[in-house]
Structures are given as structure tokens and as C-alpha cells.
């Protein structure tokens, strides 16, 4: 196993007044455990407020988690500092949602890609720039673009630059935080294909953070579904899409509008009423209970345990506890 996330919690304190008294917590991520294997694409899906991006930021060490542990290649990196942190950083990279905002607008494309190489690899300047050029060519950017600034690139091109930068150090794991959601479908397809090619060539792992189920279904090996800071279901991709167990997963999958003239008339859509409640005071028991069509008494009282239904398919729902 490459990455293990054990009982990860990330609570953001809410401060009030001039002395910054803590009056409550936003429980963005509340006790999550999962793992990413070597050479695997693992996706975390969920809607806004589910905490999926917060998990990613904890793994990228942009946040320090409230509690829980992050193991990478068996080593505990939760509180890594200095040399240890740097070694971890070189093995784990990221591609962010907004390609323009994730590139420094005052640096040329070639400098952006060469930066991590110059920083960490033992090469001279000429070599670093040669490697950067090769990377840019690999992600499909023509030579003339490399001397330009990010603002003169299209969204798809800018995302290619971000990808080139992410793979520059040949990382073991790349965190893809909504890598295509700012792009049009035709460009999205280009980027997804590029990511797949790189995945095959470099034999790395991806952790994809996304709200787009069609992208998740296309690229992932395994999927974890998040709702309000909890992992509610986890399974192999096809299994999850063919046989979703958790009421939230079922609603999520059925809500995706598909360009299929026949579909919308045939299958009944499950529409969850209302909106996700606030993560400051989540509902007691199962967090979905106020919106769930199957809510029972126990759902309001107690948090459901995580149950393994079949090999690799777990769900956290009271509907599946008996039997």
C-alpha cells in the first residue's frame, strides 16, 4: 500500500471576538480511513462541503490535521518536518482545479516547469531546462508556447503545464483536485486521456478529488463517497456504479443528467429533499438522516458502523446491519 489515511479528522475552529475565543468547530473531515494502493487510481467523490478537498489538502500537508495519521510507504508523515517533509514532498505532487490560478502569472511556462527540477534534482540549469522542455512536449505543448506567460494560454493548455510541473519530479502519487472541472468537455477528454497516458507510462498512483461522477467512473479503480465529512461508501468503481448501496450514493448517481434521450424517461431519479446541513452542527446519528428516504429511528440516534458487504465494498448505513 502506498498511502494510508487512518482516522483522519480536520476540525477548523470558529473564533469570535477580539481575543479569538473558540466558539465551535467546522468538522470538515470527521474520522476518515482509506488507502491508496500502488499504481491505482482512487477517487474521492462528494458535493461541496463533503470535505473531500480538505482531505487532499491534509495529504498535501497544506493543513495540519486535528488528529489521525497519514502513512506514506509505511512511514508516518503526519507531522513530518524539515528533511523528512522535503522527501515526502518530492514523492507527492498535485494538480489543482483552476489552471490559471495555479500558475504564477509572472513566470514563463518553461520557468514554472523547470522550478521543481532546479530545486530538487542534482542537475545544472541547462539540463533542467532541457528536461522541462521534454516534459512540456510530453504533455502536448508546442515549443513556441514555452516562452510565454500563463495568461496567453487556453485553459486546457494551462492545465497541461500544471500537469507537466506535477510529474517533473516523477512522484509516486499525484493528487488531482478537480483537474477538469474548469474545462469544456472536449478539453476535458483531452486532459483525461493525457492523465491516463502518463499514468501508464510513469506507473504512479492518482488520488482524484471530484464531484463529476462521469469522470470518476471513467478514470478510477476504486471510489470513496463522502458526505458531510464522512466516508459513506467505498468500492471498486464498476461495482459502486452498478450496485450502489448507500442511499446517498444512489441519489448522487441517479442525479447525474446524461445526454441520453431515452434514459430520463425510463429510470426514476431519486431526488434528495433539502440541502446538506452545516458541518458546524451535523445531525446526530447518520448524517444523511434528515434527507434520507429510508431514515429509521436508529439513524437519528446512532452513527452507523462501517460494514463490509462484499470484498472491498464497504458501506456505512443502518439498512445493511442485519442479515
Amino acid at each position: 500500500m502506498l498511502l494510508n489515511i487512518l482516522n483522519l479528522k480536520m476540525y477548523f475552529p470558529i473564533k469570535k471576538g477580539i481575543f479569538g475565543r473558540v466558539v465551535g468547530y467546522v468538522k470538515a473531515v470527521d474520522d476518515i480511513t482509506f488507502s491508496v494502493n500502488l499504481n491505482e487510481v482512487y477517487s474521492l467523490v462528494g458535493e461541496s462541503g463533503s470535505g473531500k478537498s480538505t482531505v487532499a489538502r491534509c495529504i498535501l500537508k497544506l493543513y495540519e490535521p486535528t488528529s489521525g495519521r497519514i502513512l506514506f510507504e509505511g512511514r508516518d508523515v503526519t507531522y513530518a518536518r524539515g528533511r523528512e517533509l522535503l522527501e515526502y514532498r518530492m514523492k507527492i505532487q498535485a494538480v489543482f482545479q483552476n489552471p490559471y490560478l495555479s500558475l504564477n502569472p509572472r513566470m514563463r511556462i518553461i520557468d514554472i516547469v523547470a522550478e521543481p527540477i532546479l530545486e530538487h534534482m542534482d542537475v545544472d540549469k541547462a539540463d533542467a531546462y532541457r528536461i522541462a522542455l521534454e516534459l512540456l512536449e510530453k504533455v502536448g505543448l508546442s515549443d513556441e508556447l514555452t516562452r510565454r506567460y500563463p495568461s496567453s494560454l487556453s485553459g486546457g493548455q494551462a492545465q497541461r503545464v500544471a500537469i507537466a510541473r506535477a510529474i517533473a519530479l516523477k512522484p509516486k502519487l499525484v493528487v488531482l483536485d478537480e483537474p477538469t472541472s474548469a474545462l469544456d468537455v472536449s478539453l476535458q477528454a483531452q486532459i483525461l486521456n493525457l492523465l491516463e497516458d502518463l499514468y501508464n507510462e510513469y506507473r504512479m498512483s492518482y488520488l482524484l478529488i471530484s464531484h463529476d461522477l462521469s469522470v470518476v467512473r471513467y478514470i478510477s479503480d476504486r471510489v470513496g463517497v463522502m458526505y458531510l465529512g464522512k466516508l459513506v461508501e467505498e468500492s471498486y468503481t464498476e461495482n459502486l456504479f452498478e450496485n450502489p448501496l448507500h442511499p446517498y450514493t444512489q441519489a448522487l448517481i441517479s442525479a447525474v443528467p446524461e445526454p441520453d434521450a431515452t434514459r430520463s424517461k425510463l429510470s426514476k431519479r431519486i431526488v434528495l429533499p433539502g440541502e446538506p446541513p452545516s458541518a458546524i452542527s451535523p445531525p446526530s446519528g447518520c448524517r444523511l438522516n434528515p434527507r434520507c428516504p429510508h431514515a429509521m429511528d436508529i439513524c437519528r440516534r446512532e452513527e452507523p458502523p462501517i460494514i463490509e458487504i462484499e470484498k472491498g465494498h464497504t458501506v456505512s448505513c443502518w439498512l445493511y446491519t442485519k442479515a
Partner: protein
Amino acid sequence: MVRDIILSINDLHIDYYTPDGVIRAVRGVSIELCKGESLCIVGESGSGKSTIGLATIRALPQNAVITRGAILYNDIDILKLSEEEMSKRVRGKEISIVFQDPAAMFNPLFTVGEILLDVIATHLGIRDRRKAYEYGINMLKLVELPDPERVVNSYPHELSGGMLQRVAIAVALSANPKLLIADEPTTMLDVTIQAQILDLLKRLRNELSLSMIFITHNLGVAAEVCNRIMVLYAGTLFEEGYTEDILTNPIHPYTRRLLECIPRAGRRVSRLKFIPGTLPDLRTPIPGCPFAPRCEYTTDICRKTPPPIYEVGYKHKVSCHLYQKR
């Protein structure tokens, strides 16, 4: 059955003046919309779809210029009206619009109630506060907002994106318009909330016999809500027809490719098709078909002459040289 045409847009051309040159965003688009019909304008960014929506309600930004064409709403020539007549007679009362980001539409200093009362007073002339309040509450009930009495006293930032979009729809519909333009109304929402809003729009369309222009980049959303689809690319019409026809029998190479781009299964099953290249530079004149540089069937004629519009089926039009009468 002959149906009345409520909106007809004829050969519309719109330019944007920017520091980097003149962007020809809309290059001759014609639209006919019948009463009670819902038409989806589908296109990727840069297709000019939102520009057409804004032009219909005369809300284009200052640097946009309509260079040619006409927009007729029930025989009213929208482009010839004065700004005052436009506000008094058309906006809100006849044509309303809902945008992608409702938060940007509302003044953050006013409560939902104050915004609603203002619209109700100006458009319907209901000055009596209690009557207007009642009317407003009913509008909020119409868009299925839970607890309307609480929502009325909330400020925009206290509401979630989905609730705010419901408020925006209530505001847009409060003066009983006949035509609603929905410009990517669910793009910023989560899928489960998007499903709610789409259901709401479909219900309202039937109940209020609204005509609707729905602008979106998402063919899936288009399939859900509309009976007709128009596919736009680089400011030109590529294909138009009934939703079933477009989805099951796409004719234009671009429409076909666009449908194939949407991932539907796992990567192990089949590799994703994609459209190579990018949108042409909209600042330069495009002599032939704008899709020619990215199309797999491009021939000489595609690069030189813009394709005319061919009728390939019942109300199914396509603008592509491939369908030239043999």
C-alpha cells in the same frame, strides 16, 4: 397545429471590443422559438451562447456591439426600443433572465424580502406592503423554498447556492413573464441540488406555460429540460433539432464528437474520444467552417466557404458541407 412564434432572432452578429482586438462572438445566428417551447442553446465556452441570451434582454456589457441582425419578441423589435421602454415594458414583464451565479445578482445589503418587494412594486404596481408581502411569500412557495417566512428576512449570504437560485427564479418570475432565459442556472450547483432545480424549472414551465431558452454547456442537462436543442460553435449554428433527434442521431461531426467526449464507462472498457485542437481565434475572420481545423472530414471547401444550413430531417437543420445535396 400552427403555433405562434414568441421570439425570433434573425442573423445576429455581436462583437466585443477588447484591448487585444475585436472579438466576433456571435456570427450570424437565427433562432425561432414558439410559445410554450423550451429551447436549449448548447455550446462550449466561446460559442457565444451567453451573449445571445444577454442580447435578448439587452443586458450586454458596454464593450459589446450588435453589428447586424434583429431580435423580435411578439412583433416588438427589441433592438429598437429605448432603454426606458425596455425596462418598463419588456424586462421582467415579458422576458426575464436567471444567471449562473445568483449571488452576484443580488445587492448583499438587502434582504430577500426587500428585493422581492422592490420588484413587485416596480413591475406590478402593488404598493400596499401587506399585499406585496403576501405576493412575495407566494412566489417563494411557488419555487418550493422551505420556510418562506424565514427566507424573506434573510440576506443573500445567509442562503446556500441552491436556495439563492430558487430566490432568483422567484424574482425573475414575479411579474409573470412569458419568456424565461436561463443562463447556466445550475452550473455552480452540486448534482443533487441541480436535479432539484431542473425539476423545479420543468414544473414551472408547464404550470405557467412559459417559453424558455436554456443556455448550457452540458448536453446531459439539455437532454433533461428541453424539447429542442441548438448546438453553437464559435458564434455559429452547427445543428438544431428536437432533443431526441440530436441525441440519438447527431448529424454534425462536432455534435457527434461532443457526445463522444462525455465519459460514460470506465477507461478499461473504451478509451475516451476527444476533439483535437482548440477553438479558433475569434478575433480573426474565419473564411470557411470554424470547425474545419479540428474536424476529421475536412475537405478544401470547408476551409474556403462557410457551409449553408441544410434541412436533413423534420425540423432538423445542420450547417455542414458533408450534407450538400448530391
